[in-house]
């Protein structure tokens, strides 16, 4: 197949903005994602890291075409080399692209969870598959008949997790799948993702648990204020700040408990209140006048990509 060397998913300069009305009823556009670029290859887990509000979940929704009506999307998304337009998104979601959502509210409160896990597919094959996956995730047979409100936080997470594994999706987008699970459950869940990747599927693992991501992922994309600042092989992160390219990635490394446990000063800017030029500049130790001119483009550097004029 000639498509084999193409990336499974390519997100190129994605931007998302929302039309909002503020208190004085004035309409304005709120840009929440800009210049976001990531690549996921077959057989790869891409971990997406960044603090909350950096646009991680919106990326998932943008890829699946699930953004609300008042959202405007710019940039390009390719799936297996073909542009992922509205029509394709409709065809592919659920079958080729699966989402693992991040909270119990994604389960219908009035439907038994077994039925929800199987989805609209009523075939016996689907039922068998669901039972297999539930067993694998340590969910008993009785769990099937329970309603979401009867589940503990960890059980609900595993049910959500099962929904994507039950399908034969090529690309799985896992939006913070592990919080609420016990450590061994989380490890089991992530090793299932690893197995899927090893079978040639592509995984996007949205998380702010960098530790877990380091154990299972192949690449990390670091998000900041709605943009990607760096995409790097996971090994570089393990090597330490010297191997990292972007000052924000370095700051993240220093903030980890096993390293310096030193949070970076300042706050991530809010959408609608973004600085001119490089979005990280106001908090950056390397800031120069050059940084304030424009948001630097993503460029290749030492086997990764970085969005910083000073990186070397």
């Amino acid at each position, binding site marked *: 197949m000639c498509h084999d060397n193409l990336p499974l998913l390519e997100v190129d300069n994605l931007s998302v903005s929302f039309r909002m*009305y503020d208190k*004085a*009823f*004035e309409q304005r556009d709120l840009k929440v994602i800009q210049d976001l670029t990531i690549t996921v290859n077959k057989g790869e887990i891409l971990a997406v890291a960044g603090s909350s509000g950096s646009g991680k979940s919106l990326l998932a929704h943008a890829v699946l075409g699930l953004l609300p009506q008042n959202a405007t999307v710019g940039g390009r998304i390719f799936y297996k080399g073909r542009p992922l337009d509205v029509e394709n998104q409709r065809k592919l979601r659920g079958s080729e692209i699966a989402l693992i959502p991040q909270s119990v509210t994604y389960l219908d409160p009035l439907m038994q969870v077994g039925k929800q896990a199987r989805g609209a597919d009523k075939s016996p094959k689907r039922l068998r598959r669901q039972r297999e996956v539930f067993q694998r995730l340590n969910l008993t047979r009785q769990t099937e008949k329970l309603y979401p409100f009867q589940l503990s936080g960890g059980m609900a997470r595993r049910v959500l997790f099962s929904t994507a594994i039950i399908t034969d999706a090529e690309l799985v987008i896992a939006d913070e799948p592990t919080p609420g699970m016990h450590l061994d459950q989380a490890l089991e869940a992530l090793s299932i993702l690893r197995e899927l990747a090893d079978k040639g599927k592509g995984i996007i693992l949205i998380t702010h648990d960098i530790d877990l991501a380091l154990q299972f992922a192949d690449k990390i994309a670091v998000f900041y204020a709605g943009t990607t600042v760096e995409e790097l092989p996971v090994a570089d992160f393990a090597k330490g700040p010297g191997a990292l390219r972007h000052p924000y990635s370095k700051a993240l490394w220093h903030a980890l408990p096993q390293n310096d446990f030193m949070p970076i000063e300042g706050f991530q800017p809010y959408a609608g209140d973004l600085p001119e030029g490089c979005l990280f500049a106001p908090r950056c130790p390397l800031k120069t006048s050059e940084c304030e001119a424009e948001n630097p483009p993503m460029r290749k550097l030492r086997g990764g990509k970085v969005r910083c004029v000073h990186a070397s």
Partner: protein
Amino acid sequence: MDKQLAIKASGQRFGFNRRVRTVIISIFLLGIIIGIFIAGIFIGDDAMAVDFTRKGIRPSWEYPFGTDWLGRNMLLRTVKGLSISIMVGTVASAVSAVLATIIGIAAAMGSKWMDSAIGWLIDLVMGVPHLLLLILIAFACGRGLTGLLTGIAVTHWTGLARLVRAEVLQIRSQQYITISRRLGKSTGWILLHHILPHVLPQFVVGLVLLFPHAILHESSLSFLGYGLPPEQPAIGIILAESMKYLTGGMWWLAFFPGITLVLIVILFDKLGENLKTLLDPYSAHE
């Protein structure tokens, strides 16, 4: 020159700031309502004037709403009727809204016992069909205006009282109230300075949104014969009288008074919604 600048500054997309527009529409709606009310006061006896030389005239330029079987001008009668409805509606909903606010605050600020007693009272009022309770109260008061006003005031406070109660409960749990209490402020002081200002918007909007119900019930009760005395041209009475003449083809006797009543009710409803948007922009997005 200045004017152009002003328009530009007040918002480009709409040509007008939406807030300003909402205010203007509200004033306009209020103007119509007040206009009809005042017109009704000035009409006086003209609405009763009997003239057999012009009985049963179809709607025309001279008599836009036609005349009835006694030759009375239906336009004048309708305006007079609407004016009466607006008056009754205003008084009754004002009393009802004050009642609702007091009861709502009492439920939220009083003891647990008080709260459940008020909840029970609300259930009681809601348990008897409104119209039946209205009939009973009108009956108790010997019909007429007093019975009508009392009835509407006593039956319509429940919904708003619940809203006020919820609002006060929410404010009460807020940090600054607790701090006020620790600072030794009395309940009365807190009520006056913290609770009432917050409840005021609810009160105003609730008051205006009570109008439609009050007016509809007023006309229903008058229609059944419990409201105003039959010589008053209230809309309900006009419509009840018209029933005898509908088979004779005098459709305008029922059509115009009814449709104008509907319009007035819609006007009040719109006014209420506009006020809601103005006073509480976040709640009124839908």
